[in-house]
């Protein structure tokens, strides 16, 4: 084995080549049992996430005060808000659908767990968005939520009364985690495939 063959970068590249084939990443067929509207909610969730990220980027470009004073800004904020509402709606339907399909079967537990983590991180991300609105709603939510967060001992690194800190969590740290987790989740969906139906005749 040559030096190049032994490099971790070479082994990683070849491992990715072996694991994520084009057929798995972008399939042109799928099992015939995948024929229900419930399957739409996964891709709908990712689509809503894209809308949320795009509108969030526009809000970030113009700054946190823009949407309070500009009609266009207010509309972009409305897009962001409704994007989040649609995102959670589709994600929760997706989650319940996968639960009742027991979608963790057949070495798919990591797919389930990364999905559950995505839901968890999404709730925290949305929460930091609500306390970063810089209006009455954010004042009230922040002053109420501080007690739960302080009681857990994390008030210093997650001070909901500190707009700058919350905004950084909301537009940098948490989206980074959420996008990475979503990527891993989708990769596992492609690698492991869609869970087959329960084999009823075997019961």
């Amino acid at each position, binding site marked *: 084995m040559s030096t190049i063959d032994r490099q971790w970068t070479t082994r990683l590249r070849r491992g990715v080549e072996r694991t994520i084939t084009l057929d798995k990443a972008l399939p042109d067929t799928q099992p015939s*049992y995948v024929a229900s509207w419930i399957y739409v909610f996964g891709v709908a969730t990712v689509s809503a996430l894209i809308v949320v990220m795009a509108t969030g980027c526009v809000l970030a470009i113009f700054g946190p005060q823009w949407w309070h004073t500009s009609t266009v800004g207010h509309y972009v904020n409305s897009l962001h*808000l409704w994007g989040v509402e649609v995102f959670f709606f589709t994600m929760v339907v997706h989650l319940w659908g996968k639960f009742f399909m027991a979608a963790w079967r057949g070495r798919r537990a990591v797919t389930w767990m990364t999905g559950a983590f995505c839901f968890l991180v999404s709730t925290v991300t949305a929460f930091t968005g609500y306390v970063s609105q810089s209006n*009455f709603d954010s004042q009230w939510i922040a002053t*109420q939520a501080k007690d739960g967060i302080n009681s857990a001992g994390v*008030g210093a690194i997650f001070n909901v009364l*500190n707009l700058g800190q919350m*905004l950084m969590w909301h537009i940098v740290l948490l989206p980074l985690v959420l996008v990475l987790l979503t990527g891993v989740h989708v990769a596992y969906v492609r690698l492991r495939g869609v869970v*087959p139906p329960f084999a009823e005749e075997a019961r």
Partner: protein
Amino acid sequence: MSKKFRPDVDVVEWTGAERPYDLLKEGCYALIAITVLVAGLAALFGSPDDPAVTLKQWSIAAPVDFAQTAFSELNGTSDTATYGAPYNTNSPGQALGPLHIAQLVGVHIPIAAARDFVLAPLEALPANAQLRRALHQWSGASAAQRTTWRAHYGAVAPGMTFSGDSIVTASSASGPVPEFINDLTLMARSGALDEALLTKDSFYTTDFTKGLLFLSNGAYLTDQANAQHLLGSQWGMMNETGTYPGQAWLWLYTFWYQIPPYTTSGNADILVGATMGVLTVGLIFLPFIPGLRSIPRRTRLYRLVWRSHYRREAQGA
């Protein structure tokens, strides 16, 4: 020896029929549909933006509530003054069993209520001979003398009124305290206190901790929230101002605040947090929890998803 088939864990991987599928096309259609849906909802309903409450607004609308809150800061009886970590050491804070987690972590956002909310802002005011004398009198007094002044003012504070552009109480031997409370109220009504609490340490700041803590210690902010159905007893944080949908996904978190023992416990926040922590771990590790992972197979709701598959199987059989 082959392992026993576990229906809630294992599957018979699919070797049956396949049908044509275009993931990219599905993704594009979904993105277009979701974008149109969101654009429609945003155009139709917009989004709420009730202006933030200021100390100026509060002290003009409810000067007595403001002044009494200011006195509670000076007297060390406000929520913040008696909070404990991460603001001060005046309370052990909430406990999870024997553990006072916040206290163990310590004070990381130090707040001395009397100094930060009352004395320091007053010291920042432009020269005012009467106020200067009052501040000098306070700084030169013993702790016992200050306690006596506060006790005397505390006795007359419940009958406080706002009249003739000043805070009026029955006369009492309260030393400089009436001057402090009156001047701080006037300072707040001018808008200067909002600035003082925000920019005390730096010209550039994004930290509203002190202003929000002061606001939350009074009744005015709560009254506004009550009118907007945002109180904890009104399912609090999952509501939004007006009739907009809020963080509906927090329904379970909010639910615990509606029932005992959480409603009656002084440790409600940490108890709710711990409960949700356990449930979250349960959700994440659900594939490994016997009983819970069998619910889908036992309820058989999956037949709704795969009804055409089972129909085909039945026809084939």
